[in-house]
């Protein structure tokens, strides 16, 4: 099959957005300015208005950009929609409020080239300059590269979806992101970490390196931060109970260590989300997510949370395409 696809696109960039059009042109422009010879950009727009679509019009003349509307909600659903449209064997993700350097895609490709067992890679998410009197920008900064080969290494891997790349085959074999996790979904966060965890459990390696980075402009005011923090830890709680529900008991020790690390405020992402004095609040949100996750069934075959029975599937016979 490889011979058939010697012309195939090597990298697809997926950018999911919802009702936050302001930064989109900047983000798309910085991606299209990459010096990689062979990539496409897929924008999945879940907005209720047409602002992002209008702002992207000037860029659509570039055949490398493909734009899709998605009427569903949730970042993980948007990412999955983008992955389905992706033609590259490597899919790189960032957020609608980030800009990327010109060597971004080449660096990602290089990271994966070092070993075929690497299925996911994370880079740094650097905060843009901001006024500390108003708020702060969530970030993820690692000084040394790290290669995770086992679930127990997850304690070192906290990369976030704003600078993440996944082999399409890995995404496919894991059944994609869990659409019950992630911003805008039932459990509000945690879809990126969940994919990383399931990948490690399946024997895939994860590479994190400071050689790759994006700049994050998503300023959160001090008033907005508590809500963001709550959803972040709530999502983590829901993500962490999943391996137990799947009977992966070797993960339990890891969970305990990770939870302790997070609650103690020694987490890189976590500490970028606010001062350490909010430990109790974090713990509370984490436990709430943990309990909420316990109440929702997990599909043993796919490792995804199961949504309620959709109304359409109760229309017996009548909804069938073949009659």
């Amino acid at each position: 099959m490889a011979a058939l696809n010697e012309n195939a696109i090597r990298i697809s960039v997926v950018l999911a957005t919802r009702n936050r059009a302001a930064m989109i042109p900047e983000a798309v422009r910085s991606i299209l300015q990459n010096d990689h010879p062979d990539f496409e950009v897929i924008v999945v727009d879940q907005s209720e208005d047409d602002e992002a679509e209008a702002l992207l019009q000037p860029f659509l003349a570039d055949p490398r950009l493909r734009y899709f509307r998605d009427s569903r909600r949730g970042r993980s659903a948007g990412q999955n929609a983008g992955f389905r449209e992706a033609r590259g064997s490597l899919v790189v993700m960032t957020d609608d409020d980030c800009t990327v350097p010109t060597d971004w895609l080449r660096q990602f490709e290089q990271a994966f080239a070092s070993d075929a067992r690497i299925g996911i890679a994370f880079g740094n998410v650097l905060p843009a300059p901001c006024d500390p009197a108003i708020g702060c920008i969530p970030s993820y900064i690692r000084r040394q590269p790290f290669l995770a080969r086992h679930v127990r290494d997850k304690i070192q891997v906290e990369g976030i979806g704003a600078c993440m790349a996944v082999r399409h085959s890995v995404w496919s074999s894991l059944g994609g992101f869990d659409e019950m996790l992630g911003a805008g979904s039932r459990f509000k966060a945690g879809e990126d970490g969940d994919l990383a965890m399931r990948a490690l459990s399946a024997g895939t390696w994860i590479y994190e390196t400071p050689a790759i980075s994006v700049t994050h402009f998503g300023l959160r005011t001090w008033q907005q931060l508590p809500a963001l923090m709550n959803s972040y830890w709530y999502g983590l709680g829901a993500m962490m109970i999943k391996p137990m529900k799947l009977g992966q008991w070797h993960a339990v020790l890891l969970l305990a260590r990770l939870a302790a690390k997070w609650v103690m405020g020694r987490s890189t992402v976590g500490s970028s989300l606010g001062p350490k004095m909010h430990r109790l609040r974090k713990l509370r949100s984490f436990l709430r997510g943990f309990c909420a996750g316990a109440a929702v069934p997990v599909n043993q075959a796919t490792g995804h949370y199961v949504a309620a029975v959709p109304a359409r599937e109760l229309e017996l016979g009548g909804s069938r395409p073949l009659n």
Partner: protein
Amino acid sequence: MPFPLVSVIIPTFQRPQLVLRAVRSVLAQTMRELELIVVVDGGDPATLEALGSIADSRLRVKPLPKKIGSAGARNAGVAEAQSRWIAFLDDDDEWFPRKVEMQLEAAEQATSPHPIVSCRFIARSHEGDLVWPRRVPAVDEPLGEYIFCQHGLRGGEGLVLPSTVLTTRELLLSVPFRGDLPRHNDVDWLLRAIRVPGATVVFIAATDPQAVWYIETNRPRISNTSDWRYSVRWIEESRALVTPRAYASFLLIWASSTAARGRAWKAFWVLPWKAIRNGKPRAIDLLAHLAIWLTPRSARSAISVFLESRKQPQRGLYGSA
């Protein structure tokens, strides 16, 4: 152009905007060595003009002088096709870019000479997306039972969507679509094709969906009271193609739901009587029949959740994405 490995056939009539979406999804495939034959079913200048705007040498438009229906249009496309493999796409559906690549791989690895390759798809409506079918056929499961018999009260369990079918040209030439059937055309073809020695239904290994079936844009479903009688006649005529279990399930679930939508109460008694007399209904079929006629949606939801919760996890059974 290199010799095409796959011929894609889209039958269409008077839906220029929709067919363009379908055509673009074919031309964006990662497997590029394909030819696309759009069969325009009858005089339709708007569609011909829309297709004229696409500059791709792989696209061929075949206008038919008069309308002969989708089955005839598909057969006309098969007659035009040059490749060993043929894939169908309806004009209101679309594919994801890897669909043909993955199916061709599965087709070439298949042990049987005439695999009918299918895949999961997204059933999209204003209520949201569902990934169907929820289950792929078990080894040695008769195709009729896979399509008609369900294990619970939820739809979307076993399906072979026409827009996901890729198979050999040879099989389509020896078993063409029947142009004289107003309904059940696709399933009729599947059940007859599967009887050809060496024909088997194969699902690609990947569980993620490779096509989108738009429920809203489908022709409005006007069911009149005679539709269920037509379905009964079709299954009686096709009884040799299905097992007694599949026969009973078809009557008690498919025909029953059609009749229930038209509130044709005679069917409420006739269908179980026929199913019991001529077929082998299972308890779940009779339960489904009662549920279709007698319970509101909410009660059906509760029964369905109860049945699902009592089930052991099964290989090949997936939740709805």
